[in-house]
């Protein structure tokens, strides 16, 4: 079935989205007016922005791993009694539609973290089971893009159940998993079947975009080299500008660290988890005041090493970075994780 698929006009893609919406699913897609495109739940296909690879400002991570979610709630019955209630499990089927290939790959990194051991995280697992991903191959490269350096491609299929690829006069569509096939709902009988030439064109387009990105894969010995650079002074130089604002983690499709906090009054409360990041000073600070990572260079180093050295070492070489470049584009002081990795690796090899 590899290579086989369908050719859809933009109108047919809209019809397909309407069909998905009519089926009672939550459809999450890039949408927005003007310059700011974000993933959000849409109620009609007309809201969706697929043209020209939207490059949404944030990844759709929050639809599997919300910024804040309740782990449990509790009620104080009287001074000596407490009733606990688990969170409500996810019930709705959802489709993440028009996801960039890098973001789809990012969801697989979340899977590594939350589903990698034993039964995994039940809240995440429930949501993940009910989620299907339709990615949209990239027809343009942005200056910050570097998926090709970290194992991805403009038409990469990691984490996708089905994929749309921009084509002259519309899109090509391929189903990649049984879940993706189910999403077609039989509509494919009315769609035009693709030819080898269609796929050759799509491949050529992806290669053109990859050339535009212009970054070759990071070397396989990178983890060892970066770990070798742990004690070098370069981290101070690299992190000199870092404000410790955490935006890089906030917009990152693979960052998955979180905090757990309670909010309560005299009668009831909730325990929540919310996104957190190793670049914030309080992340590792003990109650005593002792902080194993006492300064910004040591915190930035943790960010780089976790993504490009520690995580790959226990995940068969997969990097905890999918090259979306949002951290590069949105850093208020222009820090660039690509050059941080390159410069540090070079430091060790010379």
């Amino acid at each position: 079935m590899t290579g086989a698929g369908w050719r859809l006009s933009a109108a047919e893609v809209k019809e397909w989205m309407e069909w998905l919406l009519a089926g009672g699913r939550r459809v999450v897609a890039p949408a927005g007016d003007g310059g700011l495109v974000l993933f959000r739940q849409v109620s009609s296909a007309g809201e969706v922005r697929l043209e020209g690879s939207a490059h949404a400002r944030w990844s759709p991570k929050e639809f599997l791993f919300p910024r804040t979610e309740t782990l449990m709630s509790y009620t104080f019955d009287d001074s000596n009694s407490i009733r606990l209630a688990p969170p409500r499990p996810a019930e709705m089927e959802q489709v993440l539609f028009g996801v960039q290939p890098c973001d789809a790959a990012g969801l697989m990194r979340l899977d590594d973290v939350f589903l990698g051991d034993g039964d995994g995280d039940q809240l995440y697992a429930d949501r993940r089971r009910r989620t299907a991903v339709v990615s949209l191959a990239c027809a343009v490269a942005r200056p910050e893009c570097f998926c090709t350096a970290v194992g991805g491609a403009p038409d990469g299929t990691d984490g996708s159940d089905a994929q749309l690829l921009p084509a002259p006069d519309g899109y090509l569509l391929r189903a990649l998993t049984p879940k993706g096939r189910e999403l077609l709902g039989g509509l494919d009988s009315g769609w035009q079947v693709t030819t080898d030439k269609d796929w050759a064109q799509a491949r050529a387009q992806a290669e053109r975009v990859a050339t535009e990105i212009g970054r070759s894969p990071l070397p396989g010995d990178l983890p060892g080299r970066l770990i070798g650079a742990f004690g070098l002074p370069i981290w101070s130089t690299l992190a000199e500008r870092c404000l410790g604002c955490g935006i890089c983690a906030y917009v990152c499709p693979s960052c998955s660290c979180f905090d757990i906090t309670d909010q309560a009054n005299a009668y009831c409360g909730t325990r929540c988890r919310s996104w957190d990041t190793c670049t914030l000073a309080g992340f590792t600070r003990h109650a005593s005041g002792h902080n194993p990572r006492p300064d910004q260079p040591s915190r930035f180093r943790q960010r780089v090493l976790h993504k490009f050295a520690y995580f790959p070492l226990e995940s068969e070489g997969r990097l905890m970075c999918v090259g979306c470049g949002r951290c590069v584009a949105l850093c208020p002081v222009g820090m660039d994780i690509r050059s941080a990795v390159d410069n540090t690796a070079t430091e060790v090899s010379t």
Partner: protein
Amino acid sequence: MSASGYLPQLMRISSQRDETSDVRTLRLEQLRPAPLIWRAGQFGLFSVFGLGESAFTIANPPTRGDHIECTFREVGKVTTGLRRLSVGQVIGFRGPYGNSFPVEDWRGKDLIFVGGGMGMAALHAPLRYVLDNRNEYSEVVILNGARGVADLVYTEEMVEWASIRGVKVVRTVDPGGETPGWDGEVGLIPQVFEKLGPQPDDRVVIVCGPPVMLHFMLQSLDRLGFHPEQIVTTLENRMKCGLGHCGRCNVGPFYVCRDGPVITVAELQLLPPEV
């Protein structure tokens, strides 16, 4: 992990003991009795509802398993809230998490437990496990120190332990921390340890305490010829989830909550210095 992975079980404070002016030991009993199995050295996340969770070692050994104990110092938000609770009130517990002390591998060996300040709490479970299985182990030395006499924990138990055959208890306070009538040593733990001059042969040293104490203890152990493989400690990095997911206790490729907290110094030396 089940659907209720973050749901604690409810525990009632059945008794409490003040170790020092800011350190307290709680004895906790399950509201709904259910099997609770752990190994010496594992930890739990203890909740004060409305304030949050803190990670403490389970201070009693599984050989005394009809309840759990924890010893904590009042220092942050949760521990201050915990200290305000009284006997009969309810807290949450989830766990056990993490690895444990290799007490089976220590059989037949001489053991030295070295605890500085609150570090003694981490030694409480393995030490009592060993004493509860006294015949399986050889000579046991307990070296316990604190800044001052008033900061020493488990003082009543120390007297009891000292009376057990083959168990030697040495207590010390930092210079200036002694009181009139103090009959223990005066000096920093590493110095007192070196004065004891233990031979490394067939011995295991279990050492827990503040980072600065650990630093100098490791130097002393090295001088006395101990190998990093025969020195065991615990890591105390900040934790939230206890499940290896939240990322907070990550040090190199090691997650303290999942791969620790018990670690040999040989393993510790392979990690980046972020503990």
